[in-house]
């Protein structure tokens, strides 16, 4: 079924606008990113490929360590690889700046 994962990271940098990238297609994912008033990045991942919580943690922690942005992020995932997820995160950041 669908696995829902949540992650939170402390964050303080602001982004100018919200961003939407990607698509829920096989091997891909959709990202919805919005500025948050909280001093944190809070992430919700919905994925149809379960059992990869540690991999998600690793990819997201790495990204938010580099870009400590206060955002709410939703990821709808259909089996994207870490590389694809990382690319989508960078695209979203680019759009949000």
């Amino acid at each position, binding site marked *: 079924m*669908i696995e829902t994962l949540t992650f939170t990271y402390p964050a303080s940098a602001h982004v100018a606008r919200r961003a939407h990238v990607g*698509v829920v297609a096989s091997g891909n994912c*959709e990202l919805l990113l919005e500025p948050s008033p909280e001093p944190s990045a809070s992430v919700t991942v919905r994925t149809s490929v379960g059992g990869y919580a540690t991999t998600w943690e690793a990819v997201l922690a790495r990204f938010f360590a580099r870009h400590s942005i206060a955002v709410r992020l939703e990821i*709808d995932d*259909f089996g994207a690889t870490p590389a694809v997820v990382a690319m989508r995160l960078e695209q979203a950041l*680019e759009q949000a700046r």
Partner: protein
Amino acid sequence: MTPHIGDSYAERNARERARTLLDPGTFRELLDPFARMRSPYLAAQGVVSQSDDGVVVARGTLGGVRACVAATDGRFLGGAIGEIGGAKIAASLELARRDAERGTPTRVVLAFDSGGIRLQEANLGLLAIAEICDAVAALRTHQPVVAVIAGRVGVYGGMSIVTALCNEVIVTEGARVGLNGPDVVETEAGADEFDASNRPLVWKVTGGRRRFAQGHATALVADDMPDIRAAVEDAFVRNRPFVAIERPEFPDPGLEREAFLRAYGITP
């Protein structure tokens, strides 16, 4: 921003197709991804929902005239229509019809890339398609309803029926229009009936060039945004009424398969 190649329509996603079909700078999406109007039926079936349910509706102008584009996302579940996406399309047509009755017409372009009804929502999709069919026929009494079939999926199933109800159907060579996809025909009737892996045959039977030659499409254009925009504008300006669909001429269906196709001008 999703990178797209030059002026190709097929390479663009639904949102970019809608944006580029509308006059520059006029694109305004309704119920955009941040509205989070997701299908509530998919999670129980192990499918992740998409925030726009695979349909983009945008207001704007076309040739300076009020317009709306409803574009399906062929990459999400093959562009198959569920309750929310179907309602987006039906509502666009119904609101445009209301505008026409009020004397402020809104042009509607249906940019379809869709395999038909979403299996995971079955009868709700079926109900939506019935509503869309009626809405197209109702809007058609006021103005042309223009379909653009120029993406990678084409139109099948209930969405091909909706397309056939439009006054104007703009296709590219790469487009496909049919009721049952070749893989479905092959599954139901065997590879002898329709070998879905025979791609040249698929396009000879259901491709845009063939459909235009048959009179199923009213314009055949290159996969090029300026050409498609021009064809869309042309379609509205021409303002041709809908011609009731009549039975076409075709060879004796009792002919053996290959003979039938050859007699119909298709070399299998």
